[in-house]
């Protein structure tokens, strides 16, 4: 079973994934990354100064995809 790693960048801080997750294939890994990014946004209670959530998906050392989620709060000036 292929093993995928999901390195995150949150509020400009990099978090390398030392463990990874076994998933069927790259398509599933991309879907999981999208889902995880949405869950991270839900957990972080992002406010007005929200920054991007980025997940770099790799299979061992090979880059598979970048998933980036942006949330902006805009108010009338």
């Amino acid at each position, binding site marked *: 079973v292929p093993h995928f790693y999901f390195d995150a960048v949150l509020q400009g801080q990099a978090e390398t994934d030392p463990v990874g*997750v076994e998933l069927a294939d790259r398509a599933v890994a991309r879907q999981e990354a999208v889902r*995880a990014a949405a869950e991270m946004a839900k957990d972080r209670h992002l406010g007005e100064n929200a920054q991007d959530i980025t997940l770099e998906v790799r299979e061992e050392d090979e880059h598979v995809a970048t998933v980036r989620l942006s949330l902006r709060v805009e108010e009338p000036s």
Partner: protein
Amino acid sequence: VKKEATVIERLIRKLEHHEPLSDEEKRALETAPSRVDNYKRHDVIIAQGDRPSEVCLVLEGVVGRTKILANGGRQILGFEIAGDLADLHSLFLKGMDHGLEALASARIAKVPHKTVRNLMERYPRLALAFAWDMALDGAIQREWMASMGRRSAYEQTAHVLCELLVRLRAVGLAPDNQYDLHMTQDDLADAFGISAVHVNRMLQALRRDGLIELKASLALKILDIRGLKDAAGFEPAYLQ
């Protein structure tokens, strides 16, 4: 035979958290006829929709209550550990609204419904102890619902690890605050209703924060119980 006796003692120990049992009541439990089946990880013990004629007592391993949805999803509704009567409510259901699945290799003693009914009729205090056990299951499920709806994944993960520590310790199974879940990240993801990727991140975060040590994937040691309870907002009263 000796091994089985220890497990019945676990059940007795658990039931006695509610109220002490007489020697006769304990003997009745110890001598109740049962057969033992062994299961491998991911074996289905009881399928959703089955109409079982026996109650499952977990002797060893971890069992998940599982709900399979029409969209193909699987939700794990609870973990059953050694000493747990995993489907006592099957006594009252027309058909199982969920299944039981071995999440790690498991040994299960199966006690005929008829035997359990006879025990309950003869020994009202045992009947009350069983009712208490089902009420406890309900309390755990409510806590899980609260976690899924209103706790962050970090709090939810910490909460389940606290709950398992308390439950395993109650039956003498978490020496030095260490236990091995023998589960996969997928199982935890299906229990929490989140992705395996996020589960993995939460376990790493708890490790980085010095609350747990991860040996193998889900063999863990709780390093800071106070800290883990605070992180979860864990109040153990619902387990008593």
